[in-house]
């Protein structure tokens, strides 16, 4: 365990994965709150003050303008919204699990050198190097905080699996109730084998949620676990109203990927003839 921690502390590598996560998280934050925070919807001045910080911070985070600062400011703004407005201001829509996950992810990504790739900061750095005739700075930085993003995703899976380890979930009855709420509206489903499908589905979900938090760290298994996770979350996204949760989880999968793998993947994508 200590070896693992030590390795994480000293980890340096390509910043492309954190750059991509910065962009995707900014887009997710905007999709969750940008419409809701428009001044036209609020009469209270404190919402206007919030908007005054929110829009510039998220925009700069997205484009990577003064990335460390803008990501940090976005993290503070989102924390004020979730903790301040949500928990203490009674805005209950802002304290769902998907908003908490977004907040945690933004706080953690702010601790990474996320502006060294795919950013306005990078564009300026390359321009400066060309002007001065110096080598273009490498897209490398300390990645100790990236592991925490992976730990966050693993925690979501693991504690969610613990919550589901009950007879009522594993029997399929909980899924039957969810199905009724969202699809059939109290009409009994008379399809043969429906109960067995629910039972298999429930057991499969719990097994997957116990396996993913640990298995996703194993590099040689990621080639099939990433698509499996994509399929799992994709199904949830289509079948249930989960908000930004699915996209946030999939964005954070980049924290499990080895930085070199992400770097060479992007190199391959950008390879010109």
């Amino acid at each position, binding site marked *: 365990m*200590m070896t693992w*921690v*030590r390795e*994480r*502390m*000293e980890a340096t590598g390509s910043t492309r994965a954190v750059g991509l996560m910065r962009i995707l998280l900014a887009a997710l934050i905007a999709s969750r709150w940008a419409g809701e925070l428009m001044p036209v919807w609020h009469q209270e001045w404190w919402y206007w003050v919030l908007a005054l910080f929110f829009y510039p911070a998220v925009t700069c985070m997205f484009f990577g303008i003064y990335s460390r600062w803008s990501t940090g400011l976005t993290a503070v703004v989102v924390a004020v919204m*979730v*903790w301040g407005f*949500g*928990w*203490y201001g009674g805005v209950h829509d802002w304290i769902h*699990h998907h908003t*908490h996950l977004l907040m*945690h992810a933004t706080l*953690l990504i702010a*601790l990474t050198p996320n502006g060294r790739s795919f950013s306005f900061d990078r564009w300026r750095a390359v321009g400066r190097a060309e002007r001065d005739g110096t080598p273009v700075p490498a897209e490398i930085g*300390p990645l*100790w*905080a990236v*592991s*925490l993003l992976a*730990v*966050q995703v693993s*925690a*979501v899976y693991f*504690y*969610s699996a*613990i*919550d*589901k380890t*009950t*007879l*009522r*979930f594993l*029997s399929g*009855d*909980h*899924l*039957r*109730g*969810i*199905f*009724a*709420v*969202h*699809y*059939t*509206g*109290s*009409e*009994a*489903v*008379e399809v043969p084998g429906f109960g067995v499908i629910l039972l298999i589905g429930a057991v499969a979900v719990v097994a997957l949620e116990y396996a993913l938090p640990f298995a996703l760290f194993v590099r040689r298994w990621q080639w099939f676990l990433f698509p499996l996770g994509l399929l799992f979350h994709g199904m949830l996204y289509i079948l*249930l109203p*989960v908000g930004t*949760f699915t996209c946030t989880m999939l964005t954070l999968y980049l924290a499990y990927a080895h930085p070199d793998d992400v770097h060479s993947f992007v190199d391959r994508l950008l390879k010109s003839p």
Partner: protein
Amino acid sequence: MRVQSSDWIWRVRAGVFALLFLWLNLGPVWVQLLGGRSSALARPWRMYSGVGQEVCLVQYQTPDGTLLNRRKLLGFHGNIIRNKQLLLRTVLATREEALRICKMPENKGIDLRVTAHCSVRNRFHLALDPSVVLCP
């Protein structure tokens, strides 16, 4: 594991890493395993655990066992309806819906029966069986 005393950045990182690692994990442990209250800092990961806990699944029928279309009984003839309009959460709500059906002019004289399974904390139990006469 030895740390150079001059390597203060390493120490700060390790401290922040440890604190955040604990925060990410102790919140769910506190709420989900130790029974503490959910709070701003202690966040459990219980997605959808509250959805579908109180639901009744019903199938209307006649005394001879002929199954009846609930939507037609309620007067939703081809209308676009939301699931929530068809959602019954308790046995009482099921009985009230049955009474409403009985009182509708188009269902006059109907001998309505139902098989209703209702969930209590997500376990479904038979709450009403066809032996119960629903229309007075």
